[in-house]
């Protein structure tokens, strides 16, 4: 045993005396880096490996997609109308009910507080990148049969059966639109507050999304609350469950929390500036500013 210990000591001493592996002394394996050299000499260098004469030798090859004067493929066939502006369309990355239930089971999401896009992004299990035109979360119906949590959740896109699954457990769901500036603030609030700019006023949805966000069947945030209550009853009858009474619920205060249509963070109004260093909030007092940020 002592013999082995002696060897390890020697090995450790040797390693200690050796130079440390660092960026300045790292080197690729021999033969791993291949550089092209123009061939030279009488045997291989007469044409420098570029063949005999013509466009290849003179680097005058025609441009990509050119078919030698023929009407090229990429121009021959007309565009499809439904692809128009596809690179600008709003995207909603999906999150399934199964994933949401797993987040709640593992303590990544607290169901005793309202869930919004920030809560989901803060788990680091759901990703939303506004640079890729991601406008928020699409709650999908995978795991609809096992979903048991009672939540107050705010989503950007969803379907009827998902709404039924959440309301069956006594939860609340709202479809809410955020413009891209607001999504940028929501996905990483810490980074946004470090910029030192006022919390933005959320814009209203664009023309093609107004119908969805004013629809009580999708629990749109711009829909009439009375019509939403009617739609809740209607859906319960369709899927065969009873709508629980909110006012007797112990979590009533949490379940009734909603954001203002112009508000993007709970408890913080648009126009306020957050100072992270001094841990204070600066609120503008001028009438003009108040009028601008008022919903």
């Amino acid at each position, binding site marked *: 045993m002592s013999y082995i210990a002696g060897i390890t000591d020697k090995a450790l001493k040797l390693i200690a005396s050796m130079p440390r592996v660092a960026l300045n002394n790292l080197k690729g394996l021999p033969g791993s880096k291949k550089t092209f050299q123009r061939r030279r000499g009488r045997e291989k260098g007469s044409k420098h490996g570029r063949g005999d004469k013509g466009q290849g030798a003179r680097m005058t090859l025609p441009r990509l997609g050119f078919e030698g004067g023929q009407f090229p493929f990429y121009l021959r066939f007309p565009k499809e109308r439904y692809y128009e502006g596809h690179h600008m369309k709003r995207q909603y990355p999906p999150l399934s009910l199964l994933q949401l239930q797993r987040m709640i*089971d593992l*303590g*990544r999401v607290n169901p005793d507080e309202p869930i919004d896009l920030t809560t989901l992004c803060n788990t680091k299990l759901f990703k939303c990148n506004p640079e890729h035109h991601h406008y928020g979360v699409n709650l999908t119906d995978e795991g609809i049969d*096992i979903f048991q*949590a009672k939540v107050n959740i705010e989503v950007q896109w969803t379907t009827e059966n998902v709404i039924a699954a959440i309301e069956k457990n006594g939860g609340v769901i709202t479809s809410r639109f955020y413009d891209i500036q607001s999504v940028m603030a929501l996905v990483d609030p*810490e980074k946004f507050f470090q910029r030192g700019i006022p919390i933005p006023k959320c814009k209203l949805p664009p023309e093609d999304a107004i119908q969805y966000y004013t629809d009580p069947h999708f629990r749109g945030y711009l829909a009439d609350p009375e019509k939403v209550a009617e739609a809740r009853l209607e859906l319960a009858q369709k899927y065969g469950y009873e709508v629980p009474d909110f006012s007797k619920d112990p979590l009533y205060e949490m379940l009734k929390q909603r954001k203002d249509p112009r508000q993007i963070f709970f*408890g913080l109004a648009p126009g306020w500036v957050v100072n992270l260093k001094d841990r204070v*909030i600066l609120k*503008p*007092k001028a009438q003009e500013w108040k009028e601008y940020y008022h919903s």
Partner: protein
Amino acid sequence: MAASMISVICRCGRNILRSQIKRNKFWDERALHESAVLRATDEITHKEEEYVDIEVSTEEFKYVEKLFPSKTVPEPPKHELYPTPSGWVPPAAHISTPYAVNRTKNHNLPVYLEVRVGGTRKLTLIRKIDGDIWALEADIRNFLEPITGKKCLTQVHEVSRFIRVRGNYVTEVGKFLVDKGF
């Protein structure tokens, strides 16, 4: 010819004039001083206009703190019944096998599906293995062969501590590992 000569002369003349104007401006110290003073007073008045009347508040900062993510992955809360609604089971306290499969940082099993060659080749990858890797490989083979009715083809990597199984058996292998207490 004559026309072109005239244009050249004109151009030269204009350049000379321009440079003289520049030089004059640069060397006229009085003008320079005056402009600097003007600029300074301008800045002061401008700054005073920029400030807006504000109210400083610390009351709502608790809402800001709620928006920050936790720096570490939290420990899963204790449930009354396992498996939980989403099918999660905690690892057993004691195991009796000569090998172990550790959970990931998100408390899930390190079993993954690899899809290659345009979706035609599917492989099941089991990572984070400790102890006797060959015993685990034998156990997985003996578990899968009766279920699938096929010969189980595996790859064992002793250095990187992983096992690959040919075919998509993620759910089967996951169930096997959960039953073993990992």
